[in-house]
């Protein structure tokens, strides 16, 4: 319980720090949003009115708290480019990126764990070497390059899906999933290779421990030892690691959305930074960072719950 409390305390401090950093980062960028929206000639009254509307009055800290309050209550300001509430600009884009990340995450888990186990299950040298080589190469492929190859091969040559089309899941679940599958693969394959490798290493670590020798001495076969004893212990750090890959997965989706022309948070972030639409950019940054930090927190708590040996290290 004490552990949870301490972790929760750290979580809250981190979230506040992240929001402060994100807010300040966009404050130091020169340029006046009023000039941006109104152009060069405008009346002072109009400017004052707009300033009020955009919440630009007061000192930095006052503005920060106003913004934070808005963020928590679901009203994170007004977009400079579209002059509409940020939450309306984000509509639909959050769910896309969330679905894509979640799908990628599931794929990472579904591929990496069996793969890691297969790599120790079969002791054939050639197989092991090929799998290790494949693994290394996949780890080195940038997600956007893999995305291009998948779009080319499965989209343009084999025509299994239409790159550039996105069907919201709420509209047609099955179809939506198929269209997101390939972008998700582009994000998750390199990650899955890495996790599989980690699991492999962690199983091998466990195999050198005393209890494994004891199990062997009782006459158990290698696979039985792995299955019954080793796997449980080796999976734990792997699952924690998978939980922590979320940050990378989200990062991957920012770039991969660009390859597949998916209208998600990543593409919106890039355009809004280019357009200097900072309220939107700020909001996206904070949302993503919050989710990542929160997932890491959950992973910590769950790990501790499952395996009380893990303490603050």
């Amino acid at each position, binding site marked *: 319980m004490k552990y949870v409390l301490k972790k929760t305390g750290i979580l809250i401090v981190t979230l506040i720090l992240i929001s402060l950093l994100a807010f300040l980062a966009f404050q130091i960028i020169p340029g006046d949003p009023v000039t941006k929206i109104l152009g060069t000639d405008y009346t002072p009254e109009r400017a004052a009115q707009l300033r009020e509307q955009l919440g630009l009055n007061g000192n930095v800290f006052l503005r920060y708290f106003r913004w934070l309050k808005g963020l928590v209550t679901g009203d994170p300001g007004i977009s400079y*480019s579209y002059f509409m509430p940020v939450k309306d600009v984000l509509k639909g884009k959050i769910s896309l990126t969330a679905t894509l990340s979640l799908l990628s995450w599931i794929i990472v888990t579904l591929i990496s764990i069996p793969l890691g186990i297969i790599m120790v299950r079969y002791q054939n040298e050639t197989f092991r070497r090929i799998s290790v080589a494949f693994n290394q190469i996949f780890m080195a492929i940038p997600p956007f390059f893999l995305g291009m190859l998948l779009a080319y091969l499965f*989209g343009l040559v084999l025509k299994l899906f*239409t790159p550039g089309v996105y069907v919201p899941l709420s509209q047609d679940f099955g179809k939506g999933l198929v269209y997101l599958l390939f972008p998700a693969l582009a994000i998750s394959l390199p990650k899955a290779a890495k996790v599989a490798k980690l699991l492999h290493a962690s199983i091998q670590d466990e195999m050198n421990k005393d209890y494994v020798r004891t199990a062997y001495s009782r006459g158990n076969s290698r696979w039985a030892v792995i299955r019954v004893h080793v796997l449980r212990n080796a999976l734990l750090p792997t699952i924690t690691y998978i939980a922590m890959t979320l940050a990378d997965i989200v990062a991957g989706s920012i770039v991969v959305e660009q390859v597949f022309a998916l209208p998600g948070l990543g593409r919106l972030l890039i355009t809004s930074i280019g357009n200097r639409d900072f309220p939107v950019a700020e909001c996206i940054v904070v949302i993503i960072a919050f989710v990542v930090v929160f997932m890491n927190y959950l992973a910590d708590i769950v790990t501790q719950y499952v395996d009380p040996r893990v303490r603050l290290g």
Partner: protein
Amino acid sequence: MKKRILVVVLSLIMAFTLAACGGGSAEPEININPEPAGEPVEGGEITVGVTADLDSSLDPHVSSSSAGTREILFNVYEGLVKPDSEGNLNPAIAESYSVNDTADEYTFVLRDGVKFHNGNDVTIDDVVYSLSRAAGLETGEPLVADVAGIASVEAIGDKEVVVKLKAPDTEFLAHITTAIIPKDIDPEKEVVGTGPFKFTERKVQESITLEKFGEYWGEKPYLDKVTLKVIDNAETLVMSLKSGAIDMATHLVFSQVKELSGLNIYEGASNAVQGLYLNNAVKPLDDPLVRQALSYAIDKQAIVDLAFDGHGTLVGSSMFPALKKYFVDELTNYYTPDAAKAKELLKEAGYENGFDLEITVPSNMQQHVDTAQVIVEQLQAVGINATINQVEWNTWLEDVYRGRKYQSTIVSFDAHGVAASDMLARFQSDNGKNISNFASEAYDKAYKAAVSTTDDAAQTEAFKECEKILTEEAANVYIQDVASFVAMGGDFYGYEFYPLYVADFSKIFKIAE
């Protein structure tokens, strides 16, 4: 064993490479300006890729609206008169018009049965309201520069409207294409026009939906629905066209079109002048010698050959060939590419060792980014160290177009209407859109002479004089009228090019399968 892993790794790489090279490159077949392979059918939907989201405000009277927004809104809004693909001005919301002898009073007769998209009839009050609003009669600040010359708008009965001008203007008809909107709605919030398509939905940075307007007064469009999909990345645009995720895209360049075998390709002029626009107010570009040196250093034909596979028409001043009456062909080769001459001029101006030049280019416009790459190479040859600064479209509008905080930029300027003044007004020293900060007394005088005369021949001469001054002073490096390609997927046909920057969706049709 380690060696074997290495062998495996290397052979995999080889396999990859070979697979890549095995692709082969048969010359692709491209159907340019194809004949429809069947009869048009009523109905159907088309998805069109656009490289930038439309402006945040779709108010048709907003002065800073971008060409990309105007070309789409052409389908939604109409004025008293409307241009066609031949460049003629046809009565639209007005049924007929007349003009007095001194060309300072125009009378329009309202057409019967024209309806707004919200179902209301267009009344004479709407017309008076729209023109007054656009001309800024009440506020004193015109929203639409084209109609700034209006002195008063008056309704006579409920069928006629009289527009009085501050000064005679024989080209005024080309300017009165200004949208007519209902007087009782806020155009910033609602998009209600009278055009063949009505605006139905907008998802920010994602899509815009237009639907057929069933009660349109004129020839009704074939298609039921047009979805504009924002794809702000030229590379993904081509992929989406190939995959069929979008059915159509405009303003493509030939290198993109080459990838699109199997699609219907339409080639036309973009009716805009692409140039390396220079900020005449900053050093060293304030020196005419330097600007002339740039003009000699840049080989326009090489740009067209390298970046556009020879498609495009060279120009020499701020006028494109489609406006035949005003186009001065002799100016095109006023500066023949000559690196030695350019160096000499630079030396004379005191820049013997060249200088640094930043070229700001909107990143979503492939044709300009490609042009910039060639220009950087050409300028290198005379010792000018040019760099490219790619920016998002909105940032370009803010910094370059409105802020004039830039050194040089590559874009195309189009004409709002079919009038010479559209291409030339911006270079007057006090013009609000003079992004070049070009200031020449001779030019201002010639331009004034052109717009104040009612004598057609004298006016044409004066406009030509303006073009000549722009070229001689090397206000900017005028490059070409970029060949514009439109690609449409399999069953779609009927794209028509206008002598204006518009994309008319009403003529596009699907053929029976």
